[in-house]
């Protein structure tokens, strides 16, 4: 009796231990598409436990590949993948830990990695034979922020240009760099204009927290500042957001369209004379010649996630692409037709999906 009971127990334990082998079915990796010329890249920041990754969507919206970099190169990109810059045949993947991974933009095969001279890098722009990377330095130190200047032949950081706290996005045009100083861990209110011939820096003051920048059809610089929004302070500290138009020939401010107090848009895109921005999950648009902000939205975004967080937007060929970022699972890419004002697709893309790039 005793013995049979024991045997039963042993059998039971044995069965359970064996059964745990088969619980986790491996999901087949998607085969890499291997050709990424005609499509859209989405950069996914990742998190502490998930590596940053790149998603690719073909222009006809039919083929989606997640984790492109890992699929092609059989290695992880790194935690907190920040942005992509394109130059010639190459794409430069900027990773927060201090790396820029250079890949071929058609095949996504890794060419080289730049891993010295960068401290909390954010964005990259190109002028002549050089790449310019905004760096926060130590985010706790307000005075160590810089632009790293990379020689694109040697891929070495040759020199640095010290700049004000929290340099974020960077655009290059006609031998000048335009850097938005969102402020890093703090809040800043400057645009740096750097002459790449002698690395001199001029400063334009805008509203608090300038981030997204574009050049309009007339060549003016348009800056979206989301305003200070420290609602957890006692009392809360808030400043106004604005869209600032700057004449790049003399750095003068042509117009400054100020949002009502309490509005903090953070995403902006531009196509065919229309400036688009997102505010409280609504899409707004207005012509770049207009002198007032629109009072009604073009369409209400309808994210399906429980805690929507619009983290990136781009517009091309009257299609709006928006990332609804999740940091605890896959994010959603929402695609709208701006002629019909309807959603045409929702896709599961990289964790922490942010910027959208057209290759």
């Amino acid at each position, binding site marked *: 009796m005793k013995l049979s009971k*024991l045997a039963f*127990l042993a059998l039971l334990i044995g069965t359970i231990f064996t059964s745990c082998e088969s619980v986790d079915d491996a999901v087949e990796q998607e085969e890499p598409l291997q050709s990424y010329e005609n499509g859209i890249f989405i950069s996914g920041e990742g998190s502490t*436990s998930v590596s940053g990754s790149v998603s690719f969507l073909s222009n006809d919206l039919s083929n989606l590949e997640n984790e492109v970099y890992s699929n092609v190169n059989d290695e992880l990109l*790194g935690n907190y993948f920040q942005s992509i810059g394109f130059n010639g045949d190459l794409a430069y993947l900027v990773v927060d830990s201090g790396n820029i991974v250079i890949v071929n933009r058609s095949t996504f095969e890794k060419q080289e990695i730049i891993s010295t001279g960068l401290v909390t890098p954010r964005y990259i722009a190109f002028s002549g034979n050089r790449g310019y990377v905004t760096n926060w330095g130590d985010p706790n130190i307000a005075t160590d922020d810089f632009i790293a200047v990379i020689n694109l032949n040697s891929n070495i950081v040759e020199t640095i240009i010290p700049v004000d706290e929290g340099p974020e996005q960077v655009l290059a045009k006609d031998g000048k760099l335009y850097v938005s100083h969102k402020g890093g861990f703090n809040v800043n209110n400057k645009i740096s204009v750097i002459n790449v011939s002698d690395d001199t820096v001029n400063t334009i003051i805008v509203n608090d927290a300038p981030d997204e920048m574009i050049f309009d059809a007339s060549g003016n610089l348009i800056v979206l500042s989301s305003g200070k929004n420290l609602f957890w*302070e006692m009392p809360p500290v808030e400043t106004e957001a604005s869209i600032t138009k700057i004449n790049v020939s003399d750095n003068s401010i042509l117009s400054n369209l100020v949002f009502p107090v309490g509005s903090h848009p953070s995403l902006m895109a531009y196509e065919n004379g229309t400036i688009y921005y997102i505010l409280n999950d609504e899409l707004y648009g207005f012509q770049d010649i207009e002198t007032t902000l629109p009072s009604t939205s073009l369409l209400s975004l309808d994210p399906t996630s429980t805690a929507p967080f619009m983290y990136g937007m781009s517009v091309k060929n009257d299609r709006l692409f928006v990332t609804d970022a999740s940091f605890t699972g*896959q994010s959603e890419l929402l695609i709208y037709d701006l002629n019909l004002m309807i959603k045409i697709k929702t896709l599961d893309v990289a964790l922490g999906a942010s910027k959208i790039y057209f290759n």
Partner: protein
Amino acid sequence: MKKNSLLLLIIINSFCGLAQTTMTDSIQKLDVVTLSDVKLKKYNSGFKVSILNDSIINKSTSSLTRLLALNSNIYFKEFGSGMLSSPSFRGTNSSQTAVMWNGININSQLNGQTDFNNEIASNYSSIAIRSGGGSVQYGSGAIGGSVHLNNTLKFSNHFENNLRIAYGSFNTEKINYLLSTGNSKWTTSIGLSYLDSKNDYKFLGTDRRNENGAFNSVNLTANLGYFISENNILKLYHNSYTGNRNLPGTIASASREKYESDNLRSLLEWTYLSKNYNSKLKIAHLSETYRYFTNTDSNLFSFGKARSLIVKHDFDYTFSNVINVRSVLDYTNIKGIGSSFGSPKRDAFSATLILNHKVGDKLNYGFNIRKDYTTEFKSPLVLSADAKYDVSKKYTIKLNGSKNFRVPTFNDLYWQPGGNLDLKPETSYQGDLGQILDLRAATFTFNAYYIRTSNMIQWRPNDSGLWSPINVNNAESYGTELEFMAKHNFASHYFNFKANYSYTVSKDLDTGKQLVYVPFHKGNTTLTYNYKKVTAYYQHNIIGGVFTTEDNINSSFFSLDPYDVANLGFSYTFASNLDTNYSLGLEANNIYNKYYENVALRPMPNRNYQIQLTIKF
């Protein structure tokens, strides 16, 4: 009110209806004085309580993480070897396990959890694992279960020294010294531990190492007991820990971060013993400090600090040896200060009533009730009931049900930016059925449980991208646990086999998905063999796959593979004379040299060795 009168009715009925048996005072006194686990057993008859005694604890110089991971059903998340280690008890999260140090809840006031890699197992005389909700007796966080770290004071004539020196792979050095001395009137024990490791193990299959992973710590424990008179005992417990850890990066990204922490705990306890009751007045002071550096080379850091002052009165009354009634009054004052949360304060008061009744030889049941009053939010009234029934000498059934809670931490409420002052405590209901089959040569314990937790606090990004905690999730966990122990010996050969297995389902009730980092399967076995002066053991640990993100995707990006890791140990004791003995131990861990990650992107050590010399004199 209704519940209170019901309790009273039960007390009176039982008091009148039962024959009185007497037990000698002295035995009872000895129990109360020496065994802190007695209370744990007395008032938790319907709960599963596993006690690891000093023979298991002292087997190696390991951390509490390793000891419990290999000897219990608790699953641990370790952010790299030697780094932050947090428990998941029955599918619950890291702040839903209460850790009690000599009867005082020591979970951090800042993040609500205890780092099991900060505790040196060998500083304790016994470690008890109580499965199931226990908020009535152990307060906030006792949702999945509780872990009890106890120091036993030995009131007998003795003078004992234990020195242990170990050296292992990755430049790991451990020194451990324990002194215990005393007589029937007073006793003292002092322990000192030092741990230092370069921790630069190779990531198998790569050319990389665990860079920036070095750590060291010093741990001091000092305990004192004194019989003021025959009925009055004074006890003092102290533990201080100071640790420095570099925080290694992931396999994807390097890190230069560093984390320093200091924890101090002191407890003064005055016990008054009487024939039918004993009374304990406890005053405790706990303090925790951390300093976090984003760059090891920089002097810039952010910090957090909290200190708690606890006054606790514990009154334990026995009616006719079959009914025990206990009341506990607890006042706690907590103050914090930190770079990111200002200087919050909290006052908390709780009143608890606990009853246990023994009916005949077979039945034992208990009722518990507790109410907390806290300055910042409303805490729920919590209840618990349990029963144990001995069907036969070999077969016992245990049953319990309880309501439990976890309060928001200082981080949850005050962290800037993000802290949410509108948070409520998490509440949880649980039920647990246990069966024990004791066949002498083998013991088999089987438990099935259900836990439902509401208003779970979770940090999420809001629509402006700011991470903030909200009472958002409702979750349920259910599963089974098996414990199997067998002994066998012939001639001088002794075999001891122990196995734990758990099957755990832990679901987000809104999405139906398994919670992250809860393996469906976890099992461990240890086979120990002893022949005269030789002892050897083999351990095998199996962890099922886990999801690392909420959407439960089975891919290398979003889940971790199952793994199994085995260890082998061997020791030989040379006894030179009666008073002194030496033993030499060898340990090999991860003997099959397997690559595994316990937390995503953080590989654990490859095969490694340790040699250890223990001198008892």
